[in-house]
């Protein structure tokens, strides 16, 4: 472990530390006019935080707030104290900027070092960073983390895959750092170059920067013959380093001494029951330049406080299962397309082609889950086919808590998309307007 004391700290002790840091962070945030106004309006200050549960008295910060405070309205330190500026391009509108003090950068590389070491990085290793360098936090964040561990960095950056592969062949890095989809591109390109991707020197990889699935992990591991580790972070609170996997690879350990992570129902903003999916809301406890309070990530995941076999005492989070923007509300129940997919995965042969159709024929919502028939699940017997529909319906009910009609449809009848598949067709809006 990179920081055994912090990573295995007894829970009660860590909570005391979090409380102390949260109070200090509220005091620091009060230097920012945006937060000061919100706090004054609610009549709150550091004194209002008597327990960690009191975090719920604090206001949220959204991406829109960041845009409105563009470029530096959220800074809690004078400009001259900034040591680095990163940003997120944002798929819509202007970029948002994030400032770091020298201390923030030191913290950040330390957090990256934690998950890198948890995922096998050692000082004698060489790591190839095929993330973009620039305003994007991935490249530099991981770069400094690797250096902190004492390993060597090849800062090759994203792109020019053939050259990446030649460098790999010449320099023998054990570790690959990039997005999961780029790892697959590397495997494809190696084959195009007439090489067996298994022959590449890479032994393990740290992948992040985009949501991915367990299937994709298996694929990367098979194709490159490596172990693949997941990590999570976002530039608004720091960048990569919020959480990362340990050798158990059953969830990403959250660096709780630096981040207070809540899992809330995105509609009611109340905490979801433990283990249920909800929106991650993150408070950066130690950031100096931008003390982000209850940042709404719009990322959906589950939290797990159960002990991990690796000995770390920190809470773990699941993969990102989706974005709140994708959430459907069906008769008052929050449903994520990823839950439907999870239910289908439990029934062999029913994925990957499905479509969730939501309509409101009368006053109540109705969900039809269309599933393409497949030779594996087709039977000449009607009773078997009915049983299949029933089974899918039961799994959906178990996972997502809704009753859905299961419609088996002919092969290739669900539209194919290049890249991200369209999984939801919500017809309710059409009838309203």
């Amino acid at each position, binding site marked *: 472990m990179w920081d055994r004391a912090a990573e295995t700290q007894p829970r009660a002790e860590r909570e005391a530390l979090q409380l102390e840091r949260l109070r200090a962070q509220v005091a620091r945030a009060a230097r920012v006019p945006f937060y000061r106004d919100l706090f004054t309006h609610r009549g709150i200050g550091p004194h209002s935080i008597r327990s960690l549960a009191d975090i719920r008295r604090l206001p949220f910060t959204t991406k829109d707030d960041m845009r409105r405070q563009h470029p530096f309205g959220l800074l809690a330190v004078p400009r001259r104290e900034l040591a680095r500026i990163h940003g997120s391009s944002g798929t819509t509108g202007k970029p948002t900027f994030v400032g770091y003090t020298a201390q923030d950068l030191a913290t950040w590389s330390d957090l990256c070092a934690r998950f890198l070491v948890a995922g096998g990085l050692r000082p004698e290793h060489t790591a190839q960073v095929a993330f973009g360098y620039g305003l994007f936090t991935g490249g530099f964040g991981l770069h400094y983390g690797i250096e902190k561990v004492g390993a060597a960095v090849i800062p090759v950056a994203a792109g020019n895959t053939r050259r990446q592969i030649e460098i790999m062949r010449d320099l023998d890095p054990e570790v690959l750092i990039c997005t999961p989809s780029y790892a697959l591109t590397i495997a494809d390109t190696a084959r195009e170059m007439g090489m067996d991707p298994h022959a590449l020197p890479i032994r393990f990889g740290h992948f992040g920067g985009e949501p991915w699935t367990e299937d994709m992990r298996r694929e990367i591991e098979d194709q490159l013959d490596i172990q693949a580790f997941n990590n999570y972070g976002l530039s608004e609170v720091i960048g990569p380093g919020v959480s990362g996997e340990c050798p158990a690879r059953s969830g990403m350990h959250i660096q709780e001494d630096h981040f207070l992570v809540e899992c809330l129902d995105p509609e009611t903003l109340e905490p979801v029951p433990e283990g249920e999916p909800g929106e991650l809301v993150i408070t950066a406890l130690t950031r100096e330049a931008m003390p982000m309070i209850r940042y709404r990530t719009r990322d959906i995941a589950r939290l797990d406080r159960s002990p991990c076999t690796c000995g770390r005492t920190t809470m773990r989070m699941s993969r990102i299962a989706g974005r709140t923007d994708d959430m459907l509300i069906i008769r008052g129940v929050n449903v994520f397309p990823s839950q439907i997919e999870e239910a289908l995965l439990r029934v062999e042969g029913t994925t990957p082609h499905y479509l969730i159709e939501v309509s409101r024929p009368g006053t109540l919502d109705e969900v039809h889950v269309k599933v393409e028939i497949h030779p594996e699940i087709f039977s000449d017997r*009607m009773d078997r086919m009915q049983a299949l529909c029933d089974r899918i319906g039961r799994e959906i009910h178990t996972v997502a808590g809704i009753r859905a009609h299961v419609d*088996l449809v002919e092969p290739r009848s669900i539209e194919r998309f290049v890249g991200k598949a369209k999984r939801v067709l919500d017809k309710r809006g059409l009838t309203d307007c």
Partner: protein
Amino acid sequence: MKLQQLSLFLENRPGRLEAPLAAIAAEGINILTLSLADTAQFGILRLIVRDWEKAKRILEQAGWVVNLTEVVAVDVLDRPGGLAGALRILEDANLNVEYMYAFSLRRDDKAILIFRFEDPDRAIQVLLDQGLHVVDGDELMTFVS
């Protein structure tokens, strides 16, 4: 003595039945009989054709999901009690009938029934032992020609 039956998955909407039939007809394959089991939402089309291997290839290439099953054809007297007698024999022998349907053509006073058994080999043995006539593929052809 078993016959090969092709089953196809179809969505239950107008015109869906014609497409696969037209696809095999276009290749000159004769359909000996067909049966459609359906719900409000989807259907299972079962076909017995002259050249099932070719038919299966054509349908699969056209994108249908096709399943191959062994079924048994039995002829019974086409009069009241003809079917009941055959069913009683099967029931007495504890043979599970998954489903059955009538062959579309008949000859003289005989009707042909197609049975899908869980265990077709044992079923054939029982039927023969009880003196019923199991119709094989070649004989079935004579009904159509």
